[in-house]
């Protein structure tokens, strides 16, 4: 029972750290730092997976955290780092400054946690999803997803958009843990390879755009009107 409780607040702390790093990845203007932040965030994602494995006594989750470790912590940051070298380090000025976006994010966190704690059955399909660690995990995944969307929405820089997309995918990956623990690994690998290829293509495209346009500001990519 103890380690359950211990495990319990271990999970909560991991959640908080994970959320902290994703917020950092979103806000840091220097691309290299935000890549570092995203790698750390993925690392903590893998650790969350591991802790969940021993809480729910579901050995396959260990495999999940291993795959997450390989792909999300090594492959994607390598790709990001490979292409960010060609792009300017400073990110183009986003539409909203850091303070307002952080405020919106916190507001969002409060709203999602309060909403999920009151009527979790609205979104949680099965019973074990409604139990404590799974519920807050669900809440966390939803917040990280919305954070990702927020970055995509507010940030003008192409590379930053990729990071936003990665944030979104991590959020969904988190929700997979609670909602679909019995999913076979091959499907998970399928999803993750998809994410990798998307990131790789987007970064290659961002590089080519930077070479022709001279800037990575996607807001300027608005020739095709009407």
């Amino acid at each position: 029972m103890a380690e359950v409780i211990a495990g319990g607040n271990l999970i909560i702390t991991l959640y908080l750290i994970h959320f902290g790093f994703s917020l950092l990845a979103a806000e840091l203007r220097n691309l290299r730092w935000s890549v570092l932040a995203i790698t750390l965030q993925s690392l903590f994602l893998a650790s969350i997976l591991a802790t969940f494995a021993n809480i729910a006594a579901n050995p396959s989750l260990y495999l999940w955290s291993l795959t997450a470790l390989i792909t999300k912590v090594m492959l994607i940051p390598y790709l990001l780092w490979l292409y960010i070298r060609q792009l300017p380090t400073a990110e183009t000025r986003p539409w909203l400054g850091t303070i307002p976006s952080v405020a919106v994010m916190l507001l969002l966190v409060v709203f999602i946690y309060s909403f999920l704690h009151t009527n979790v059955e609205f979104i949680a399909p099965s019973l074990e999803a409604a139990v404590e660690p799974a519920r807050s995990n669900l809440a966390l995944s939803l917040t990280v997803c919305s954070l990702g969307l927020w970055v995509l929405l507010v940030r003008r820089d192409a590379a930053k958009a990729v990071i936003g997309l990665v944030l979104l995918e991590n959020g969904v990956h988190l929700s997979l843990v609670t909602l679909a623990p019995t999913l076979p690994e091959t499907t998970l690998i399928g999803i993750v390879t998809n994410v990798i290829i998307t990131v790789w293509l987007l970064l290659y495209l961002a590089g080519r755009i930077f070479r022709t346009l001279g800037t990575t500001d996607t807001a300027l990519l608005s020739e095709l009107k009407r």
Partner: protein
Amino acid sequence: MMENLREVTSVLPILVFVVPVGAALLIFALGRMHRIFREALALLGLAVTFAISLVISGRVLSGELLTAWNGNLYVDGLSALMEVLGSALGIVIVLYATKYLPNHQIGLPLSPWRHTYFYGLLVLFMGTLNWTCATNSLIWMWVSLEATTLTSAFLVTFYWQRESMEAGYKYLLLISVGVTLALLGCVLIYAAAIPLLPGENLLHLTEIGNVARLMPESVVLVACAMFVAGFGTKAGLIPFHAWLPDAHAEAPVPVSALLSGIVIKIGAYALARTVTIFAPYYEAVVIFVAILASVSMVIGIVMALVQDDLKRLLAYSSVSQIAYVIEGLGLGTYLGIYGGLFHLVNHTIVKALLFLCAGALMYAAGSRKISELGTVAKKMPVTTFCFFVGALAIGGLPPFNCFMSKLTLFFALADREILWAAIIGIVTGMVTVACFVWAAFRIFWRKPAPTPNPQIAAKSVPFLMQVSMLVLALACILLGVFPQVLYPMLNAATDSILRILGAG
């Protein structure tokens, strides 16, 4: 309903997507050596795939359901239909592209590598398409759907000009974001269904129907919203259609024919596999899909009316036409699904025809702007004829194929007491006719534009491109006059969907 259905395990479902992938790899490897290699390989790959899909549909029609990998790959009427349609369109497009790509004006002289990766990606895309239709698991279907986007992304940015890169970027980004939301929906449905299906860890599409009614209602509605949003982005319904006009306008014509022909249809296929299952049990879903479809119909064609760029006009009209298909599929009744699938096939043929004509116009006149294309009718008789057949067909006039499918749709709507949708459908039909006939009139018959475009018909349209256009035009007329030719295939597809619903 075909009762005597036997589950038969066979290697065909695997072959149908392995062959194109193999061919694609071969093309990537050998393509650069000589032009013949890549075109012949592409044609060969697609021809073999087409043959396999014909064999599959033959077996499906005779009452067998092909499965492989103990149920993970599962080919029924609907998937057979999509495979046949996809590979057939693929062949026509490759035939067209062999003549179109090498010698048309736009873009810098294309390096052999550029050609090889075009054919390679095209065949690879066909592979992922067949994989989407063949998979039986919800999550794997999502993965393969995402794969089709990835393979077609670099087809859109083929010219690597400023505009095509922008279109490609938007195409990739918007569809990835949209389809990720659909993944959320899949996860929710997966989580809700698994406890009800003991011993099942990979949610098969066929089993969803049995538990459709037992899932908690709020979860189902949220999941349906996610599905409609996600797969709607892929299909191009109104609020999510932003990528469609740019991708169609900037991609080379064979790719836009592919986009309009098959890519948005995969979105519709995914919706058929997911949302249609919940239609009979949740009236709200049916009404919602009807509302969304009607909105996209009207706004799509209204936007098409005023376009000066011919390909953007065709893109917007795709938004409006795919809405007919999704409205049909969303009804969940036999007639609705039959009409939806029938219109899906018809629209693929008609829209591919119109895009190929637009390509011929660009090939000869070198410009896409309707204002710059003055009286080209006399110099390009075949293209004029084909464009008019397409214009009249998409408008839904009787001797052509869309008339029958739209009418079936209207009867299905009337049958389901959603008369307002039928009326909106008819009005949109009229506006479509007006829009296309006006555009055709401006292009083909109007006196030359004030700024006469010098290279008008500088080059005559090569024979192979005309043949592919004529084949599609002939298909339009034949399907219009003998609609029951498609009946067995469409009936099998509709039965396959209804069997999944019925099981529930």
